[in-house]
C-alpha cells in the first residue's frame, strides 16, 4: 500500500475520482503507515475507527456523485484544533483527557469538503516552541536524518507532528497553526510545504488560543498545489470569530502554475543575518536566480525594523498568552490539583499542568503587562509592530512578493537547544515579521544542505494576496525540482 501513501493529495483525490482506489483503501494504507511509524511520535491520538467510518461515508458520497473537493482524503489534525468527541489537549497535561463537545470551524470545513480524520498530531505545548520538545507527550522525531547519521533530529515546531506526519507519508496533508513561524519552520525542517495565510483568513474559533492577534491556521502539505487545495477549504468568513475577514476565498489552486513573468520580487537586505550558514545564503541566491529565469524582476528592498521583530514578538505573544491561558484554572475542565485553599488549588494545578516553556511565557507575559512595565514593554512592542507593518507597506510599493529563507538553519538535533530558550527563539527570526504584520507567508523545500537535510525558502505576500504567493511558490517548486524524501528508517 506504500504506493497509496506516497501520493500527493491532488493525485489521491484524482485517483479516487477516477475510481482507481477507494477512500477506505487509501485510509487503511495511511492507518497502517501511522501504526508503523509510532516511533516518530507524530500522532498522539489515532482515530482509525472514525477514519474508516468517514472513508466509507466518503466512498458512498462519491458513488452518488456528491463528492466534495477533498472527499476521501485522509488528513492529520494538529492537536490545537478542537475536535468533537476526540481528545484535544494542545499537548499539555492541564488539558489531558479534555474532549470537546464542539468542532473547530477550520476542521468543520475540511469535513464539509469530505476529508477524513486520521487522528491528532503532536505539537509544542500550547504551540509554544520551535522543536516540538515542549509537548507533554514527548518530542516528535523528524523522519529526516543527516546522511550517515542516526542522530534524532527535531521536525521543528510548534507544528512538528503535522510536518513530520506529512514528510513521512502518514497523511496526505495536515492542519497546522502559526503564531511566529510554527507552520513554516517545521515545513522547512521536513521538506514539506506550509502556508500561514493572511491574519483573519482562517477562523480561530475552536482553535486553542496561544496569542490571539498572531495565531493563524494553515496547512502543511506535500506540494504547493496540495497546500493551495487545503487552504481553499480551510479559509472563509466565520461570524463566530470577530477577527475573521469577510472576504471571498478564491480557489487558490488556480494560482499554482500561473506565470510569474513580470512580477517584482523583493529581497530584503536585513534578512542577511550574521552567522547565516553559507548553504542558506546559497539557497536564497538559487531562489533569486530561479525567479529571475522565470521572468521576475528582482528588487533589493529594505525592511529596517526587522531586527526589532523578534523582541517585539516575544513581548506581544507572551502577553496575550498569559491572559489566554488564565482559563486553565482547574475549575471547569482539565487537570485539577487539590490545595488547602483557592490560591493553593490554582498554584498546584497550574504548576503541575503547564510545562516549563509555557510557564516561562506566562511569566514573561504577566511581567510585560504589569503596572509600571506596560508602557516600556507591551506598548513599545505594539509600536514596533506598527513600524514593521509600515516597513512592509513601503516595500509593497516596490515589489509584489518577498523572498527570504524560512529558517536560519536546517533541522537540529533533539535536545540541542532545549536548554537555551534564546537560541530556540532565534528559529523564528525570519518568520515572526509576517505574523506581526498579518501577512501571508509560505515555506517550500528548495534544496538540501551538505548533510542532505532539507532547507526552505519563504515567500511573503501582500495582505490577502495568497494567490501571488502560490504562483511564486509554484514557479520555485518547478525550478527547484525538489524530489528528495526522508529515507524510511522507522
Amino acid at each position, binding site marked *: 500500500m506504500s504506493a497509496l501513501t506516497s501520493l500527493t493529495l491532488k493525485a489521491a483525490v484524482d485517483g479516487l475520482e477516477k475510481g482507481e482506489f477507494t477512500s477506505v483503501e487509501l485510509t487503511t494504507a495511511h492507518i497502517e503507515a501511522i501504526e508503523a511509524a509510532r516511533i516518530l511520535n507524530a500522532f498522539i491520538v489515532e482515530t482509525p475507527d472514525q477514519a474508516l467510518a468517514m472513508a466509507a461515508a466518503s466512498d458512498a458520497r462519491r458513488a452518488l456523485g456528491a463528492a466534495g473537493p477533498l472527499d476521501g482524503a485522509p488528513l492529520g489534525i494538529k492537536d490545537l*484544533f*478542537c475536535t468533537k468527541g476526540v481528545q*484535544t489537549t*494542545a499537548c499539555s497535561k492541564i*488539558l489531558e483527557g*479534555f474532549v*470537546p*463537545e*464542539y468542532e*473547530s470551524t477550520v476542521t468543520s470545513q475540511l469535513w464539509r469538503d469530505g476529508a477524513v480524520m486520521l487522528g491528532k498530531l503532536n505539537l509544542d505545548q500550547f504551540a509554544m516552541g520551535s522543536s516540538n520538545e515542549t509537548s507533554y507527550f514527548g518530542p516528535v522525531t523528524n523522519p529526516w536524518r543527516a546522511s550517515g547519521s542516526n542522530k534524532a533530529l527535531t521536525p521543528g515546531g510548534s507544528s512538528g507532528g503535522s510536518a513530520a506526519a506529512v514528510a513521512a507519508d502518514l497523511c496526505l496533508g495536515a492542519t497546522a497553526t502559526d503564531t511566529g513561524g510554527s507552520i513554516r519552520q517545521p515545513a522547512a525542517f521536513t521538506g514539506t510545504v506550509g502556508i500561514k495565510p493572511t491574519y483573519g483568513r482562517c477562523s*480561530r*474559533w*475552536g*482553535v*486553542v*488560543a496561544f*496569542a*490571539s*492577534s498572531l495565531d493563524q491556521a494553515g496547512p502543511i502539505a506535500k506540494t504547493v498545489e496540495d497546500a493551495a487545495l487545503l487552504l481553499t477549504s480551510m479559509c472563509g468568513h466565520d*461570524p*463566530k*470569530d*470577530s*477577527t475573521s475577514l469577510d472576504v471571498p476565498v478564491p480557489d487558490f489552486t488556480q494560482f499554482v502554475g500561473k506565470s510569474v513573468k513580470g512580477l517584482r520580487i523583493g529581497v530584503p537586505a536585513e534578512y542577511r543575518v550574521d552567522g547565516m550558514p553559507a548553504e542558506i545564503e546559497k539557497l536564497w541566491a538559487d531562489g533569486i536566480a530561479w525567479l529571475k529565469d522565470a521572468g521576475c524582476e528582482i528588487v533589493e528592498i529594505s525592511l529596517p525594523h526587522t531586527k526589532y521583530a523578534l523582541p517585539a514578538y516575544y513581548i506581544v505573544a507572551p*502577553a*496575550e498568552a*498569559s*491572559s489566554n*491561558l*488564565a*482559563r486553565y*484554572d482547574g*475549575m*471547569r*475542565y482539565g487537570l485539577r490539583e487539590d490545595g488547602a485553599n*483557592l490560591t493553593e488549588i*490554582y498554584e498546584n494545578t497550574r504548576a503541575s499542568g503547564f510545562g516549563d516553556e509555557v510557564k516561562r511565557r506566562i511569566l514573561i507575559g*504577566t511581567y510585560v*503587562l*504589569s*503596572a509600571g512595565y*506596560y508602557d516600556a514593554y*507591551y506598548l513599545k512592542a505594539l509600536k514596533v509592530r506598527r513600524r514593521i507593518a509600515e516597513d512592509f507597506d513601503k516595500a509593497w510599493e516596490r515589489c509584489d512578493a518577498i523572498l527570504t529563507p524560512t529558517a536560519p538553519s536546517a533541522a537540529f538535533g533533539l535536545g540541542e537547544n532545549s536548554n537555551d530558550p534564546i537560541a530556540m527563539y532565534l528559529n523564528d527570526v525570519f518568520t515572526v515579521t509576517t505574523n506581526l504584520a498579518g501577512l501571508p507567508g509560505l515555506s517550500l523545500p528548495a534544496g538540501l544542505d551538505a548533510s542532505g537535510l532539507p532547507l526552505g525558502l519563504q515567500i511573503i505576500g501582500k495582505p490577502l494576496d495568497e494567490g501571488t504567493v502560490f504562483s511564486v511558490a509554484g514557479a520555485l517548486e518547478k525550478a527547484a525540482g525538489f524530489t528528495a524524501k526522508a529515507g524510511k528508517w522507522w
Partner: protein
Amino acid sequence: MTDHSKTIQGRTGPWEIVLGLEVHAQVASKSKLFSGAAVGFGAGPNEQVSLVDAAMPGMLPVLNGFCVEQAVKTGLGLKAQINLKSRFDRKNYFYPDLPQGYQISQFDQPIVGEGVVTVERDDGTTFDVRIERLHLEQDAGKSLHDQDPNATYVDLNRAGTALMEIVSKPDMRTSEEAAAYVKKLRTILVYLGTCDGDMEKGNLRADVNVSVCRPGDYEKFRETGSFSHLGTRCEIKNVNSYRYIQQAIEYEARRQIEILEDGGKVDQETRLFDPTKLETRSMRSKEEAHDYRYFPDPDLLPLILDPEWVKDLEATLPELPDAKKTRLQSQYGLSAYDAGVLIIESDRADYFEAAAKGRDAKLVSNWVTNELLSKLSSGGHEIANSPLPSSDIAQLVELIENGTISSKIAKEVFEHMWAGEGRPAEIVEKRGLVQINDTGAIEAAIDKLIAANPDKAAAVKEKPQAIGWFVGQVMKETGGKANPATVNDLLKSKLGL
C-alpha cells in the same frame, strides 16, 4: 454647591463628605454581551451558560450589537459624549466565578465620555452630577459559599451578562444627594428602557467612593481639578439600595473622621457594607489590590460607530424625565413638586396625561399623586396595571368639576371605585351621592338646626369660628351631600355673620 454640603462636627473641627459613584446597570438585553446565551432571572444554576461563557478552549467573544445600542442610548440620555471609536480591554484576575480569568471591559477608550445628570434634592432644589464615563463590561458569575460547609459552588448564569458602568465625578456632598443621584439615574435608565432598574435583583447597584475633607477643600478641588485637595477615598462595593447607600456613607464618613482626628491616616481600600451591623469593613487594601494588567482584547476589533446611526438613534429617544417635568409644568400648570412626583415613572406621567385630557389638570394631578398612588403602593400595584383606568379618574374629576359631587364625597366615591363597585358615575347614581344644590332643602335643614340649638346660635355671634359645628351638623343631616359652599353661605346669612 457649598450651600448643600453638610458639615459634620468633629472633635477637631468641621468636616465635609465628598462622594463619587460607580453605578453598575445591567443592560436590558435578552442575551449576553459576548455570547448568545440567554439572560434571565429564575433559571436553574448554570442553565444559561454557553461555551463562550464557560471559557471553553478556543471559544471567542462576539459583541452583541443590541447591548451597544443600549449603551449609546444611555449615553445620549446622560447628555454625554458618544465616542465613535472605543475599545474592549481585558481586566485580568483569577476567581472561580470568572471563567476566562479576565473580564472584558473598556479601560481607556469607553463607548461614552463626559455627560451630566441634573438631580433634585428633597427640598426641590437641584444640583448637577458630572458623568465621567460610561463603559460596557461583562458581569461575573456567582459564587455560592453557603451550599456546603466544605465547598463553594459556582453559578455562571450571570457570567458574561452586559453591564453599563456609569462613573460619576465626585460631585455629591451628602448621603441624601448620593441616593437622590442614584434615583435620578435609575429614572433615566428606566425611561430609556436600557436597564430595568431592579435593585433588589442587583440589576442596578453602586460602588460608593467616600472621602472626607475640611470645609473649603472641595472648592479648591473644583477650581483646580487636583485631587490632592481631597482626602483619601475608600470604595464601598456593591451597595444595592438607596437606604444602604445612605447608611454606608454615614458610617464610612464617621469612621474616616475618627481615624483622622486620632491622628491616623485613611488607607485607600475597598470595603464592604454590612447591612445587618450597619458598618463597612475592609475587603482588600491597596497593597492587596490586584494588578489587573489591562490590555486591548485581541479577540475583538475596535468598536467603530457610524455617526449617522447615532443620530438616528438619538431621534428615537423617548421624552426624558427633565423635559417631561418642564412640559408638565408649562402645559398643565402643575407645581414643580407635583410634576416631579409624576415623572418618577413615565407610566405615571402617561396615566396622568390620559386622565387630564379636557379636565382640570391640577385636580387630576392631586387625585393621581395622592389618592391613587397611595392606594397603588399599599396594594403593591404598578400604575401601568392600575385596577382603576385613567378614564375613571377623569370621570371622577369631571363629576367634581360639574358640581355633581363635592371633593369630600369624591373621596367616598373613590373608595367605592377602589372596592371595584364600578365607574364613578354609576357609584354616585347607585349610592345616591349626588350633591344637594337645592337651597330649599338646605335652608330647611338649617332652620331646623338653629331652632333646636338657640344657645349655640347665639354663641356663634361671639365666636364666628364656631360655625364649623353648624356646617358639620348640616352635612350630617344631608348625608354629606349638601354643597358645602351653599351650606356655608346660607348659614352665614341665617346666623347673621
